[in-house]
C-alpha cells in the first residue's frame, strides 16, 4: 500500500522534534481522522531574502502523516519564504513516489502546517501576509477549534 520512500521517511523520520524558541509554529489538525501536526521554523535573518534555517515537526497521526511532515521539512530547509510557499501537495506526493488516494489529505495537512508556521512568523514580525495565506489561515483556525476541544486534556497535559 505504501511506497518504499514513504516507509523510509516513516521509519527514520528526518527533522523530528521541537525547536526551542522557534520563529514560527504551525499547528494544524484533521477533523476527519483526528490527526495533529505541529511544525516549527527558525529563520536565518542574515540572509537576504531570509531563509529557513531549521525546521522540525511533531505528528500524531498515520504513516502518511508522519512521512509527509518529515518530507516537507526536508524540502523547505534552506529555502526562502517565497520558495517554501510554492511547495504543493503534489510536489510532496511526487517526492514520495505516490500516496494511496485515501491518504492524500495527510499531505495536504503537511503543507498546511508549513504555511501556518510561515503565517505565524510573518504575523509576529508584522510582515506583509499574502492574501492567499490569510485565506488558508482562516480555514485552519476553524478546524483547530474543533480539534482542541477533542484533545483538550491531552494538550493541557503537555503544557505541564
Amino acid at each position: 500500500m505504501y511506497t518504499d520512500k514513504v516507509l523510509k521517511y516513516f521509519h527514520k523520520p528526518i527533522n523530528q522534534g521541537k525547536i526551542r524558541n522557534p520563529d514560527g509554529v504551525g499547528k494544524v489538525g484533521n477533523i476527519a481522522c483526528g490527526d495533529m501536526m505541529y511544525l516549527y521554523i527558525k529563520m536565518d535573518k542574515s540572509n537576504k531574502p531570509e531563509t529557513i534555517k531549521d525546521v522540525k515537526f511533531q505528528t500524531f497521526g498515520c504513516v502518511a502523516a508522519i512521512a509527509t511532515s518529515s518530507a516537507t521539512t526536508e524540502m523547505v530547509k534552506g529555502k526562502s519564504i517565497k520558495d517554501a510557499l510554492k511547495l504543493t501537495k503534489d510536489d510532496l506526493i511526487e517526492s514520495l513516489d505516490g500516496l494511496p488516494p485515501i491518504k492524500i489529505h495527510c499531505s495536504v495537512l503537511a503543507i498546511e502546517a508549513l504555511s501556518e508556521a510561515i503565517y505565524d512568523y510573518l504575523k509576529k514580525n508584522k510582515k506583509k501576509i499574502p492574501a492567499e495565506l490569510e485565506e488558508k489561515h482562516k480555514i485552519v483556525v476553524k478546524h483547530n477549534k474543533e480539534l482542541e476541544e477533542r484533545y483538550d486534556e491531552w494538550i493541557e497535559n503537555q503544557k505541564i
Partner: protein
Amino acid sequence: MSTKKTNKKVYLDYAATTPVDKAVVKAMLPYFNVKYGNSASIHTMGVDSNKAVLNSRDIFSEYLNCQSNEIYFTSSATESNNWALKGVAFANKGKGNRIIVSAIEHDCVLNSAKWLSKQGFDVVYAPVDKNGIINLIKLKKLITKNTILVSIMHSNNEIGTLEPIKEVGKLCKEKGVLFHTDAAQSVGKLPIDVNEMNVDLLTASSHKIYGPKGSALLYIRNGTNIEPLLHGGGHESGKRSSTVNVPAIVGFAKALEICVSEMKQESIRQSKLRDKTIKNILKKIPNSYLNGHAVERLPNNVNIRFDFIEGEALMMELDNHGIEVSTVSACSSPKLESSHVLLACGIEKKEAQGTIRISLGRYTTENEITYLLEVLPKVVKKLRAMSPMGLKNS
C-alpha cells in the same frame, strides 16, 4: 527490496484470518481433481462427492448439537449474515417489521440491517456497556410485538467480548422472536449448543479456524421461515442454490474437527498467553488500556489502546519488526471513521485512535509473545516522542 529491519515473522492477526492447517489441505486435495464430481449428480462420482458433503454436515451438526439438515453451506460469513437478516426479514414481514441488532455487530450485519431499514424495516440497535456486553434489560425493552428478529454476535471480532448468548436466546424464546448469532469468531474456539443457547440461526466461517477461505455456513433451525438469497437449481434443499463447493466444505469440516479435538487444551494455553500479554503491556507501557472485558473474552483476543499515538503508525512500526497485528483506528478505516465498536463502548474518538488488536492462534508461541513484549514498549515510545501530545508521558 524490503525496507524491513528484520526477517523475523510473528503473525498475531489470527482474528483476521488463519493459515490453512496441513491436514485440512490434505483432506481437500482429492476433491479438486480426483473426486471432482458434482454432488448433485447421481452417478458414482457425484455420489462420492455428495457423501463427502453429508459427512461434513454431520461433523457440524454434532458440534452444534443440531440436525444435519439444518446446516447450509455458504461462501462466506458475510453471505451467511446477509442471508440470515434479509431472508428472515422478508419471510416474516407479515408478522412485523422490527429487527434488533447490537451496536457492535460486524459491518456485514450492520450494513444488511441498514439496507433493510431502507426497505421499510424498523431497525433498532441494542446498546452495550463499557466492556461491550449487551445490556439485557434494555434489549428486553426493545423487543416489541412487532419484532421478528434479534441478531447479536456470540463474540466480538474487534474486542473479543463474549456476549451472554444463552440469556439472549432465552429472552427471544420467551418473546417468540427469532434469534440469530454471528459466531464467526467463536466457532471452533468455544463449545456451542444451539439448543441450550436457544439459537435459531448461527453463522460460522472456515478461514477463521484454519480452513480455506470462501467457505462458511448458516445453521437454520428446522421450521424457521426464511427466504433464499440465491435462487437457482435448488441446491441445499432449495434454500441456497449454487453448485456445491465440495473441497471447501470438506476442508471446513476437517478444520472444525481438528479445533474440536484440541479445544480444551488450546483454550487454556491461549488464554494464559493472552493474559500474560495483557498484563505485561499494561504494566510496561504507561497510558495503555485494555478494550473489552477482562474475563468474558475470546481466549485469543488482546485489544489495547495507547494514548497520544495512532494505530496505523503503531501497526506499521510493529510490522517493521516483523510483527503483524491489526488496527481499527480512524486513519486506517476506508471512511476515516473511528471504530463503531469502541465508540459504542463509550470510548472517546481520541482514545480509539491508538488501538491495536493482537490475536493469537494455534501456532503462537511463548517466544513470540516475549518478542512482542520486548518490541512494543520501544515502538510506542518512539511514536510518542514524535507526537505533539502528552510529551510528559513519553
